[in-house]
């Protein structure tokens, strides 16, 4: 695959191809392919102590007593700690300006009581991980059970057992969005469809388990935390506050990070604890999670129950939408996002890319005795899209409309942008209708329907499903990434400089964990500055690199990082040109920068970046004193609102009625992510996100039993799709109109996980339509499918499909 120019005509004219838009091979790859990557646990540090945690095996219980004497006496054990040993440390609270919100207090070790199975209670420090784990078995904890808080709907009722007594309720957040008179509009709607929907809990399951290494340099009074985190800046700021240290006394470094998907985008008790202990003991302290710990303690996602109804006119045009959402947020309101993040997004994004004149969405975020939830790829929108797209298809079925046609009638049209949704989100122009048209054409929709009819005639269960969605990406300072969150995630700062040798170094607050930002940000800078990608080094994932940074999450880094890179590169280029104009004795308008040199256009007179740098920094006298500007620029980019990214997914699948295996035969994605920096990387993001969507739709489910014990505590029980479960994915890239973001980029890391579950759910419902089965619950595992089909085969089920209620108690 060659580095194809973005603009072949430009190449024909002799212009150098821009690297933006080209399939540039990644800068990161050589080290990662050869075992030379540096993940947190790969760092070899002599004399490090290893932490192991004794975790709660109770869902909700008082800690009556803890006996650590035997553990502490084991040779090789250096210390054994309980909450009492950390009493001087304030608990972490994720605050929010949101009304009716209750923060929760979370200490590094459970204090007084435990609230989920897996919560750390005792920490053992030993000379090796093996010894630390040996000692765990000698710790004696006496628990007094308080009864699990498992069902969020029961937990939301008056008189329910409280997990956090000081909150006075288990409902940690509630919110309502409304537009128009939804009751009146619904009452007048000739067609109404609705149901109770359920998305079961997921876990991000990044292949690298969480890992932290803290080192304290007493001489320099510098605490360095190497962390498998997506948010080094946020963790640094919190540690500074918690430990009352100056900002330059704490450095958080996210080195190579093995995937995140949101699971590493929150603060964790373990990283606070290793930082505190390293400082206290003056020895390096490290902890690397095993997979069991990951599955019971890394933030989980998507656990919602949604009751929703859609009203339409006789032509299939939406009149009203109403929904009640209960989010099961687990035991704590996670820092910094709060428990409101995921469930509120379900309600704020439910109207999706459609014209919805009247809307009311209510949500409650309810705590339960399960692992805390947090951001997981897609956040809220995989659930809102699943529900809305099912409602749209149910309405199409009722009206006898083709699923494509009902979408055409309701999608916001190109001439209606900017469009303010019923929940207040403003969509800038994005390829809503165009992506639907493109997917139908790419998949030969009419041909697929004809083939489906033939297959059905043979008795085969073949289904076709569509899903169109929109998401808000590159969110700026106008909107908090999470409601009321007091942390600014809406700006990104970069410093780009040319050093005295002419090398370009650019520092960002983003923290790549697989996205290839060292490549894509270098592409942007190379084009804007006029140098080669290999001349640019990207510093990221290091809180010391920039004055303010947060990290990489929420499909922000290409939009905000790329925007900041563009602004700072332009600044720096202007400085370079001014210096070069003295050296070349030419006006800046006559100069052009390319391949790391500045030329007088149309001549062979040129100076390299290195020569300019020497003239500025070293060779005094070559430039007038006033012309020696520092070759550095720091710029902050704030997209203010953010920009819409949209797509339509199409799924073709077949169910084997004997085994209940679902075979995905085709997945087609038509998406609009604005200007594409590197199409190879964009394709990879879509593939990976769709694979997680396939998992969400068909396989992945975090299962707690009624007592609050986690049953899906291994990768044999929590089923992540393998190569045999993920089909090839066809992608059509569209650019409806470049957004107003600097650079024209839209965020695109999450969309695949948003669209795929809905498209698969609709295809399943289509395949099962001969049975009259309503698909209202994901994942549709083979067992769930078997039960649905068995129930449908019984005589009672020849009636119109009842909304299954079994999940409420299960």
């Amino acid at each position: 695959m060659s580095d194809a120019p973005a603009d072949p005509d430009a190449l024909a004219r002799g212009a150098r191809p821009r690297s933006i838009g080209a399939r540039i091979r990644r800068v990161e790859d050589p080290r990662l392919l050869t075992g030379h990557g540096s993940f947190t646990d790969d760092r070899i540090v002599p004399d490090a102590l290893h932490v192991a945690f004794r975790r709660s095996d109770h869902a909700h219980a008082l800690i009556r007593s803890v006996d650590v004497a035997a553990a502490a006496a084991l040779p090789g054990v250096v210390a054994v700690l309980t909450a009492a040993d950390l009493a001087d440390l304030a608990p972490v609270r994720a605050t929010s300006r949101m009304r009716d919100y209750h923060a929760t207090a979370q200490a590094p070790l459970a204090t007084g009581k435990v609230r989920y199975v897996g919560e750390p209670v005792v920490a053992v420090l030993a000379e090796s991980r093996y010894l630390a784990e040996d000692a765990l078995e000698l710790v004696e904890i006496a628990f007094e059970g308080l009864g699990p808080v498992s069902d969020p709907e029961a937990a939301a009722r008056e008189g329910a057992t409280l997990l956090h007594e000081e909150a006075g309720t288990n409902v940690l957040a509630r919110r309502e969005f409304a537009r128009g008179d939804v009751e009146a509009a619904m009452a007048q709607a000739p067609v109404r469809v609705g149901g109770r929907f359920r998305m079961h809990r997921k876990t991000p399951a990044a292949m690298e388990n969480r890992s932290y290494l803290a080192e304290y340099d007493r001489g320099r009074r510098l605490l360095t935390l190497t962390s498998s985190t997506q948010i080094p800046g946020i963790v640094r700021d919190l540690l500074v506050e918690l430990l009352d240290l100056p900002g330059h006394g704490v450095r958080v470094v996210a080195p190579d990070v093995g995937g995140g998907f949101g699971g590493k985008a929150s603060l964790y008790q373990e990283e606070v604890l290793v930082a505190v202990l390293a400082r206290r003991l003056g020895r390096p302290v490290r902890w690397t999670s095993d997979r069991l710990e990951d599955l019971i303690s890394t933030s989980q996602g998507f656990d919602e129950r949604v009751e929703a109804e859609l009203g339409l006119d006789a032509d299939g045009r939406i009149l009203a939408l109403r929904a009640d959402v209960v989010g099961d947020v687990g035991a704590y309101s996670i820092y910094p996002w709060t428990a409101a993040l995921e469930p509120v997004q379900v309600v704020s994004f439910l109207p999706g890319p459609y014209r919805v004149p009247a809307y009311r969405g209510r949500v409650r975020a309810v705590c339960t005795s399960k692992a805390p939830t947090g951001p997981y790829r897609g956040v809220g929108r995989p659930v809102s899209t699943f529900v809305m797209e099912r409602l749209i298809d149910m309405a199409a079925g009722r009206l006898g409309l083709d699923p494509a046609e009902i979408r055409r009638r309701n999608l916001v049209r190109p001439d209606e942008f900017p469009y303010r949704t019923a929940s207040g989100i403003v969509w800038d122009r994005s390829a809503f209708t165009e992506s639907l048209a493109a997917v139908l054409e790419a998949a030969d929709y009419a041909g697929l329907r004809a083939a489906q009819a033939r297959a059905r005639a043979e008795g085969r269960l073949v289904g076709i499903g569509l899903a169109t969605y929109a998401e808000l990406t590159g969110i700026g300072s106008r909107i908090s990434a999470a409601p009321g969150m007091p942390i600014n995630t809406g700006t990104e700062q970069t410093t780009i400089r040319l050093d005295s040798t002419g090398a370009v170094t650019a520092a960002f607050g983003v923290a790549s964990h697989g996205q290839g930002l060292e490549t894509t940000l270098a592409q942007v800078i190379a084009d804007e500055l006029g140098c080669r990608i290999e001349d640019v080094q990207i510093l990221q994932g290091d809180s010391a690199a920039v004055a303010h940074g947060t990290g990489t999450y929420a499909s922000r880094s290409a939009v905000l990082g790329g925007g900041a890179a563009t602004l700072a590169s332009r600044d720096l280029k202007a400085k370079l040109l001014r210096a070069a104009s003295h050296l070349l004795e030419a006006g800046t308008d006559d100069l052009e920068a390319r391949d790391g040199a500045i030329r007088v256009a149309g001549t062979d007179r040129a100076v390299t970046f290195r020569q300019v740098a020497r003239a500025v920094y070293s060779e005094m006298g070559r430039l007038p004193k006033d012309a020696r500007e520092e070759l550095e620029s720091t710029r902050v980019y704030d997209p203010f609102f953010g920009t819409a990214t949209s797509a339509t997914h199409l799924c073709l699948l077949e169910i084997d009625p004997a085994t209940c295996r679902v075979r995905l035969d085709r997945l087609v994605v038509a998406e609009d992510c604005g200007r594409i920096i590197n199409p190879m990387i964009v394709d990879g993001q879509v593939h990976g996100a769709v694979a997680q969507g396939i998992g969400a739709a068909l396989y992945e489910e975090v299962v707690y039993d009624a007592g609050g014990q986690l049953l899906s505590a291994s990768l044999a029980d929590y089923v992540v799709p393998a190569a045999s479960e993920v089909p090839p994915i066809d992608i059509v890239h569209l650019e409806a109109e470049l957004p107003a973001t600097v650079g024209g980029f839209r965020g695109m890391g999450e969309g695949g996980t948003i669209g795929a579950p809905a498209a698969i759910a609709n295809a399943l419902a289509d395949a099962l339509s001969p049975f009259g089965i309503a698909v209202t619950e994901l994942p549709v595992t083979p067992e769930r499918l078997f039960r649905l089909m068995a129930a449908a085969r019984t005589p009672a089920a020849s009636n119109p499909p009842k909304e299954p209620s079994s999940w409420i108690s299960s």
Partner: protein
Amino acid sequence: MSAAHDVDVTVNGRAYRRRVEPRLLLHDFLRHELGLTGTHAGCEHGVCGACTITLDGDSVRACLTFAVQADGARIETVEGLGTPEALSPLQEAFREFHALQCGFCTPGMLMTCVDLIRKYPLASDAEIREGLSGNLCRCTGYEHIVRAVRAAVARQRETTP
């Protein structure tokens, strides 16, 4: 805890001798005793495949193997394939087809592919996918890995008639 044992292994052509506890897992041995941190532990229960190495010519989960079981064995790890300056043809194909994102599962994925390419014709994508199905990757959705393996197999066929 029982007495330590001597372990003699050849890793990527280099001989090592270490004295270890019998319970030491092979991935910990490679990473901590030999400093070969390219082999990663993803699940430590044999499902994800991130720790895959070859042991006497067969792909093996280092997390399900004790170091003492490797006594006398020839081991290959990702560090033995190519260097950042000179990638092996398989590594080069992974880079060309963007078959890695975060890179954490990649060493195990590569070592599985080394074993598969040596032993099987991999004539179809279905065969490649079946071969890869014991290694989990959460980033790529596998399609680009399949393409990389397909290309590596085709190129090897061209060069070795």
